[in-house]
């Protein structure tokens, strides 16, 4: 019997090794897998490469992981925020590496990894600093930049509901990067609000099919939800 349900966030991330590349879902707090990030901090792996849209906010979640000096490199589109002080401090001290990627290119590089694409040409960033040193090509009447996929050892994401096969549904704008990250990582670990019986999810509305998911852990909802 397939059962991807794991007892705790700690058990779900016990095998992360130093130097791993980890994709973390979420856009701000929406979709941020906070319990899994806390477990990763407790687990102790260091020298990590993190893929997220941002570089942490305030003092919790990804910001806490960065603040604990466990991250060697961040790949993101928008590190600078009013409350990204942990990243800002380490970046200015030269203690953390940044690969700045336009948001759509970040998404497509993740998607490409999950879809088995070797590389792709995108018009985004052509003629800008972010395309310096990259291969370009004129196709038809437009110029494009060659971009490579981003593969990860782990994706840690948050979904709303899951079954024991790892089929997932999401809630509102918390979906964001999670479905593509799930496909791009060797091991995808999901924090969900609710685990339901096989068959209880409407097959028409499953967003991430279980084939992309390795481990599921139930975490009580802590976020503020509208009534």
């Amino acid at each position, binding site marked *: 019997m397939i059962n991807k349900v794991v007892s705790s966030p700690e058990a779900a991330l016990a095998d992360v090794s130093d130097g791993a590349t980890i994709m973390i879902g979420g856009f701000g707090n929406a979709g941020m897998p906070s319990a899994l990030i806390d477990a990763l901090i407790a687990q102790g792996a260091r020298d990590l490469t993190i893929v997220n849209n941002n570089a942490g906010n305030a003092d919790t979640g990804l910001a806490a992981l960065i603040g604990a000096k466990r991250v060697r490199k961040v790949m993101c*589109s928008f590190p600078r925020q009013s409350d990204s002080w942990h990243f800002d401090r380490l970046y200015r001290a030269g203690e953390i590496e940044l690969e700045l990627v336009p948001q*759509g290119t970040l998404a497509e590089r993740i998607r490409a990894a999950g879809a088995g694409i070797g590389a792709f040409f995108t018009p985004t960033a052509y003629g800008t600093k972010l395309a310096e040193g990259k291969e370009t090509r004129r196709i038809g009447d437009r110029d494009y930049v060659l971009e490579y996929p981003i593969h990860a050892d782990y994706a840690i994401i948050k979904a709303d509901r899951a079954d024991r096969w790892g089929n997932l549904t999401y809630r509102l704008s918390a979906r964001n990067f999670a479905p593509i990250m799930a496909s791009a990582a060797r091991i995808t670990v999901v924090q969900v609000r609710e685990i339901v019986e096989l068959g209880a999810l409407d097959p028409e509305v499953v967003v991430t099919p279980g084939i992309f998911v390795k481990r599921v852990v139930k975490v009580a909802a802590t976020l503020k939800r509208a009534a």
Partner: protein
Amino acid sequence: MKKMDHKQIAARVARDIPEGAYVNLGIGLPTLVADQLPKGREIILHSENGVLGLGPKPLPGHEDEDMMNAGKEPATLVTGGCFFHHADSFAMIRGRHLDFAVLGAFQVSVAGDLANWHTGGADAIPAVGGAMDLAVGAKKVLVMMEHLTKKGESKLVERCTYPLTGARCVNRIYTDLAVLDVKPDGLHVVETVEGLSFEELQRLSGVPLKRLASAA
């Protein structure tokens, strides 16, 4: 002359957005356009984080941390709106499905080059977000900005001195002084605020401007 305030510029941008348009409003000044869209028109707002049909700010007490706009502020969904993942969201942008992107700017060149993501300063932490995708992907790129910097320098320039967001991507510029179209032969003045002559706008702008024969 009667300079426009930010709300008036937003209202001027909104006037040019037709019924049925799919629109992305960038962070900063462009977000003001949302409240100025004519009530009778169905216009669908796109948000990078996987939302079509972005609605206004929620009422106090109705915020939901799973429902954000691209600026990570609490948001709502209009009736008929929907969600999708980030790769689909940027397929909408890059794939030329969006009718308009309204973006802020540090500088726009006479050729329509846009600089809006990085001051290039050695100590500045660069952040780009979705700006470069919107610049190349939207069918029309509209820029909304102050005409002059705080120091009084023109933000319309011969060549951008700040790092580019996109080359030759801007179609129309809305400032507190004027509306200008970017055409292959340079910047055409569509209209100026009351009491501002073409000659005076030309002097303030510091780059060659053309009179538009007939306003678009």
